[in-house]
C-alpha cells in the first residue's frame, strides 16, 4: 500500500506485530509454565519465576488425584478427573441435541422458508439474552422437574443455548447448495426427505463437522449455566476450577493452572481445525471467510 521507503515501514510493521504478539502470547505462556512449576515457585512474595527452575508434573498428579504426598495445605479436594468427564458428557450431549434440532430447522428455513421470515430472528435473539436472566426461572423449573444436578438438565440447556448457532451456521451452508440440486433429486424420483438426505446433506458434510466442533467448543467453555444448574455429581471442570479458586486459603496456582491447561486443549485443537469456519460461526454465518 505505502509508496514510502520500503525498509523503514517494514521495520515499523515488524516491531508493532512483535509487541502485539508478545502481549497476546504471554498470558498463555504464563499458564503453560505455571502448570509445571513446583509449589514454592507459584507466587513467592517479591519474586517472579519467569520460567520454572525445575519442571514438575506434581500439579497434574494433584489434578488427577494420583498425588503421592497430599501435603498440600488446602483441605479442598483437588481430584478433577470426574469434573473433566462431566464436562465431556455435558458438552457432547448438548452438541448432539443442538445439531439434531438445529440442522433440520436450518434446512426448513433455508429451503422452504418455514416458520415465516421472523423465525430466524427469534432464534438469534435467544443467543443475545444474557443466560443469567433466564437462569432463575430455569432453576425453579428444573427443581420442579427434578432436573437440577442431572446430566439431562445440562444437556437440555446446553442444546437450547447453542441451537441458534447451528441454525444460522447450517442455514448459510445450505444456502450455498444450489436449490436445483434438491430439485434435480425430486425430478429423479425422491421425496422431499429423500432429496434432503441423499442429495443435499452430502454436500454440507464439511459444514456439519465444523458446526458440531464449533458448538462443542461453546458448550465445553460454559461456566455460568453449569455453576447454577450442576451439583456435586454433574459438576463440570470450569466450575471445579472456580471451586479451587475461591476455596483455597493460599492460592493453588499449580493445580489450577494444570486444570486450566487441560481445559484449553480441546477448544484450541478443535478451533484450529475449523479455523476457516470460525469467522462464519461467530458471526452467525453472516460473514464467510
Amino acid at each position: 500500500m505505502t509508496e514510502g521507503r520500503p525498509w523503514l515501514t517494514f521495520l515499523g510493521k515488524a516491531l508493532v506485530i512483535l509487541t502485539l504478539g508478545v502481549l497476546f502470547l504471554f498470558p498463555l505462556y504464563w499458564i503453560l509454565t505455571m502448570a509445571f512449576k513446583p509449589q514454592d515457585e507459584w507466587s513467592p512474595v517479591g519474586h517472579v519465576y519467569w520460567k520454572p527452575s525445575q519442571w514438575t508434573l506434581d500439579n497434574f498428579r494433584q489434578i488427577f488425584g494420583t498425588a503421592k504426598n497430599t501435603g498440600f495445605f488446602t483441605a479442598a479436594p483437588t481430584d478433577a478427573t470426574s469434573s473433566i468427564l462431566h464436562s465431556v458428557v455435558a458438552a457432547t450431549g448438548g452438541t448432539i441435541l443442538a445439531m439434531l434440532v438445529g440442522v433440520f430447522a436450518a434446512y426448513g428455513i433455508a429451503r422452504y422458508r418455514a416458520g415465516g421470515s421472523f423465525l430466524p430472528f427469534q432464534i438469534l435473539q435467544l443467543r443475545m439474552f444474557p443466560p443469567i436472566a433466564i437462569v432463575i426461572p430455569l432453576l425453579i423449573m428444573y427443581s420442579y422437574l427434578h432436573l437440577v444436578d442431572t446430566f439431562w438438565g445440562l444437556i437440555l440447556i446446553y442444546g437450547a443455548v447453542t441451537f441458534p448457532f447451528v441454525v444460522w451456521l447450517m442455514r448459510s451452508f445450505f444456502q450455498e447448495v444450489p436449490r436445483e440440486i434438491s430439485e434435480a433429486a425430486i425430478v429423479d424420483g425422491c421425496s422431499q426427505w429423500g432429496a434432503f438426505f441423499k442429495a443435499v446433506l452430502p454436500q454440507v458434510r464439511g459444514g456439519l463437522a465444523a458446526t458440531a466442533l464449533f458448538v462443542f467448543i461453546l458448550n465445553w467453555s460454559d461456566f455460568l449455566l453449569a455453576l447454577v444448574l450442576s451439583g456435586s455429581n454433574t459438576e463440570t471442570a470450569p466450575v471445579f476450577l472456580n471451586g479451587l479458586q475461591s476455596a483455597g486459603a493460599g492460592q493453588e496456582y499449580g493445580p489450577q493452572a494444570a486444570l486450566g491447561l487441560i481445559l484449553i486443549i480441546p477448544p484450541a485443537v478443535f478451533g484450529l481445525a475449523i479455523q476457516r469456519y470460525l469467522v462464519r460461526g461467530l458471526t452467525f454465518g453472516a460473514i464467510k471467510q
Partner: protein
Amino acid sequence: MASIRLENVTKRFGAVTALSGVTVEINDGEFFAVLGHPGAGKTTLLRTIVGLERPEEGDVYVDGERITDVYPGDRDIAIMFQNLALYPDKSVYDNLAFPLKQAKVAKQEIDRRVNEVAGTLHIERLLKRKPGKLSGGERQRVALGRAIVRDPRALLLDEPLSALDALLRLEMRAELKRLQRELGRTVVYVTHDQVEAMSMSDRIAVLREGALQQIDVPENIYNRPANRFVAIVVGSPPMNFVPVRAHWAGASLELRHDLFSTTVADAASLQGLLADGAACQLGVRPEDVHVTAEPGIPASVYVTEPLGGETVVDLDVGGRLVKALVDPRLELVEGGTVQLQLDGSRLHLFDESGGSLLSAAGDPLFAVSVP
C-alpha cells in the same frame, strides 16, 4: 414419446408475472426452442412443465393427460438445469445411476443402462470421476446423460450450452441435434442465443416478459416476424427500422420517406389496418440493404466494421443510422456518400405499435423508387 400442451398458463412470483396466459402445443418428437431475453420467463416455463412450479391459472397436458397436479418425480419428464445441478459428492456413475436407483431398478439393469448411455455420450472413461474434476463439456454431457438415462418421454434443456466456450458450443450443437434425432424424444430447449434457436430447432417460440410473441418454424421467425421485438431478437446485426408515412390512392398504398417512396402491390389486405397519413415503420435486414453503382437512396458512410467474411457498414440515411452487410472487397470511405437499393422482395412493414402488417418474405410485394 410425448406431445406437451400448455393451456393459458399464468405464473406469478409476488407482484412479478413470470408467465401470462401462455398457450402452446409442442408436437411429439419435436425439437422445440423457447427464445427470449434473460428474465422473459423461459426457465419458469420449463419448471412449470416439469412440475417444480405450480401455475396460478391454466393447465399442463402431456399426451392429452392433465398433469398440472402430478408430482415432478411421477411425470416421466427429465430436466437439465442451466447450472447442470450434478451431485458434486457422487461419481459420474452414481450421478447417472441416481434416477434409476430411485425407481428401484435392479442392480445389473442399472449397470447396463448407465454404460449404454455413457457410450452414446462418449463419457465411458469418466464414470469413476467426480463432477468437480470434469471439463465444462464433459460435465454438460454427464448432466445430459442423467436426464436421458431414465428414457423419459420428454426432455427439457435450460440453456445447456451457455457455459461452454464458442468452439465447444458449435460441436455440442451438432451432437445435441444428432442425439435428439437418434432418441426421437420431444425436446423443449430454452436459450437466449438466436443462432442456437435458429440452427437447432424444428419450431421456435419467442417469449417476452412472460407473453408469447410468435410460434413458428425458424424461416418464418426470420422472414415473417410477428412484430418489431421478434424482428430484432433474430438476426445479427439486428433489423433496421425506417419511419415512413402511409398514403392511400384508391386501392394502392404508397409509403413515403423524404428520400424515397415504396409502393405496395396488392394492398387490399391492409385497407382497414392502416389509416391514411398514419406513421409506420419499414423493416429491412442489413443483408437486404445493397450498396449499388446506379442511382438509389443517397446515404453517407458513418463507420465501417470489416468482419473478414463480410463488412457491416453504418449508413446515415436522412439522419437515421441504417446498418448494411456488404462484400468486404467493396471500397468504402468513411464520410463518403453512396447509393442504396432496398431489396423489395425482403422488406417488412410494421405499424406504429410494432405489430407486423406485411412481410415480403421473397415475393416482390414492395417496389422502392427514388423521386
